[in-house]
């Protein structure tokens, strides 16, 4: 295994053009994308709670200094206000990038996201009005000590909502390319950033701007006997479990990163399962009505005759994130290894 716990073997997919590479961590990659968006398009605004001094996770460092307090600023502490304000900015042709300080606190903005942002283009209809310029960023996921209100990963509450695009990057290079694509996209995007990776994940990232496609999964590692579908932080756990299982069982396992969780790339997943005949879906948030349920049902519909074993769903148990219980709650490499074993032995 790599000495960096948060590095995957695959090469980033930003093309063959020669690039000036740096090795930032994830928050620096986000910062670089925001910097680019502010620099190249005067319609871009960046705001949220404590954003001006750099943000509690440092993603907006130096932006207020470089681009001025009219374009990068603090808002009052009100998530519904922040998202409502962002929608209004976008409706008037700006490109607001709003930050919700923790995904755990997005719920006051649920109405604005579900009833307003998602439905805006649909209800405007022939007027052509839309809020495609809006991106809402939020750190999500566990870090080991976040407990009930600093660990949540609420993506599946939003993958139920047509009109929103839900994106979660796994690494610095992915984060930069996907965030720039989200900013360029003419649909509202919720961009969930696994906060445990902000400092932990380091990889080579081009300094220049580049976009990675939305709604396109990536086969991070090819394999023949099992497909594992995941996204965000658990991909690294999958990677460790795969290394061990491949050695122990003499098989090869394919790892797919969904990257965009809605509307998601069904074709890549189905193609992979058509090849392997076995599938496991892994995510950190609770398993009940999670992203895994949709993926598993889609596999059942699209690859039924090819399946050698039931599709397994690994997620957090259907409980809350109790402070001292975290490592038993979310899937770890052992659970993933165990799922591979049971799938192969089925």
């Amino acid at each position, binding site marked *: 295994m790599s000495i960096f716990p948060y590095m995957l073997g695959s090469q980033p997919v930003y093309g063959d053009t020669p690039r000036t590479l740096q090795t930032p961590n994830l928050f620096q990659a986000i910062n670089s994308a925001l910097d680019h968006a502010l620099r190249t398009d005067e319609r871009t605004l960046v705001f949220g709670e404590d954003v001006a001094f750099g943000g509690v996770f440092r993603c907006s460092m130096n932006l207020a200094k470089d681009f001025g307090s009219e374009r990068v600023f603090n808002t009052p502490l009100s998530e519904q206000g922040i*998202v409502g304000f962002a929608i209004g900015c976008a*409706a008037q042709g700006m490109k607001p990038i709003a930050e919700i300080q923790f995904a755990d606190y997005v719920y006051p903005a649920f109405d604005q996201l579900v009833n307003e942002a998602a439905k805006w283009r649909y209800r405007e*209809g022939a007027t052509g009005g839309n809020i495609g310029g809006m991106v809402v960023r939020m750190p999500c996921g566990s870090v080991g000590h976040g407990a009930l209100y600093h660990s949540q990963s609420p993506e599946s509450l939003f993958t139920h909502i047509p*009109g929103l695009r839900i994106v979660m990057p796994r690494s610095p290079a992915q984060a930069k390319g996907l965030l720039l694509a989200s900013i360029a996209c003419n649909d509202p995007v919720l961009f969930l950033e696994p906060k445990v990776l902000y400092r932990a994940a380091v990889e080579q990232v081009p300094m220049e701007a580049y976009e990675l496609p939305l709604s396109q999964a990536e086969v991070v590692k090819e394999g023949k006997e099992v497909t594992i579908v995941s996204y965000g932080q658990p991909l690294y756990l999958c990677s460790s479990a795969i290394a061990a299982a491949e050695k122990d069982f003499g098989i090869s396992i394919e790892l797919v990163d969904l990257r965009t969780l809605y509307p998601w790339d069904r074709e890549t997943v189905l193609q992979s399962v058509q090849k392997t005949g076995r599938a496991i879906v892994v995510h950190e948030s609770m398993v009940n009505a999670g992203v895994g349920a949709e993926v598993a049902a889609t596999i059942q519909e699209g690859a039924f005759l090819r399946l050698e074993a039931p599709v397994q769903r690994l997620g957090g148990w259907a409980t809350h994130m109790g402070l001292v219980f975290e490592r038993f709650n979310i899937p770890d490499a052992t659970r993933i290894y165990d799922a591979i074993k049971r799938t192969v032995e089925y």
Partner: protein
Amino acid sequence: MASSVHFPGAVNSKFTTDLAFEQPSTHPAMPTYRVMDSDGIIVDESRKPSDISNEEILKWYKNMLTGTGPPAIVSIMDLIMFDAQRQGRLSFYMVSAGEEGIAIGSASALFPKDVIFCQYRETGVFQQRGFALSDFMNQLFANGKDNGKGRNMPVHYGSSKLNIHTISSTLATQIPQAAGAAYALKIQALQNPNMVPRIVACYFGEGAASEGDFHAALNIAATRSCPVVFICRNNGYAISTPTLEQYRGDGIASRGIGYGIDTIRVDGNDIFAVREVTKEARRMALENGGKPILIEAMSYRVSHHSTSDDSFAYRAKVEVEDWKRRDNPITRLRKWMEHQGLWDDEMEKEARSQIRKDVLKAFAQAEKEKRAPLRDMFTDVYEDLSEESKVQMKELGRLLDEYPGEYDVSEFEGGRKGLDEPAEQ
């Protein structure tokens, strides 16, 4: 000895040894500004409207008659549409009797390029800005010519041409959006000095002002100095809930002060006062880089909440009749026009008959139109159809083909074919 230590949260506060809680009841209620009394007499001649032509005033009056109508005689469009709903020709309707003065008076003071967010009882705003009778009727009948493509319930109008965002049923969500839109206008004016400065006007009711979005909006608009005029229509009722059960403070106006926002209360039945207040609010909103203004316009909802509501289940008919008799914005303006010799019974009769004819004509035309094609059920969810939507459109098509007797597609443009994606350009 310093009389204060400048706590950051209230820098101008002085120390006191008087242990006294502020008691709202000891503060006088904020006054209600007016220009004209309920008999149509200008109460302060120096405040007489001087910048409006009689022609303009007659247009307001006809707009009020058309869109909403005097409650004493009942409106024209309101009456026709209300009846149409009762006959099952329309799914739903909301009248705005009693609040025409607020809508038309305020809209008359805005610039065409100003951006507007409405709630759902501002028919007069649309009318004053030039939304045609056919536009109203196409939306009400949810036909294929409706901007909303038949997706929204009736009265959810919208027009990019008139700079009015499409109405959503969720209350108060438009208020923080208005703050954001105003901030966008402010930044755009800063970035492009040739641009004529614009404001956002945002309408909502006193019930909506209980939602968190209202408070979030006023606070963020104040901290970001957004050029937005918040216009609260306080009509006394949120469906059935009277203001006494909605709040205990001095109306909605008192809240503006708490957020550091310049605020005024105005007699919503006095169209001259509403216009003057809005005009001044617009000017102030653009001063010194911009700031929000709150207007609380007082009125009485003489109509039911909507066609789904029978308000006599929660308020006495006599209360409503009293209000209709006592005061309403249309009869007030009519009295003023009669005092000026601009209007008489004959003109009233003629105007009503003409408006009724026009409304019925637009009504008949809109009712005949086809629905938008079936594919518009799926379009505009995203900028482009998603792979999932394309698959689902095919699946729905398969069902329609398999069970043609179960689904009548004849009223939709193109029938069954209207579900197919248009050929690639």
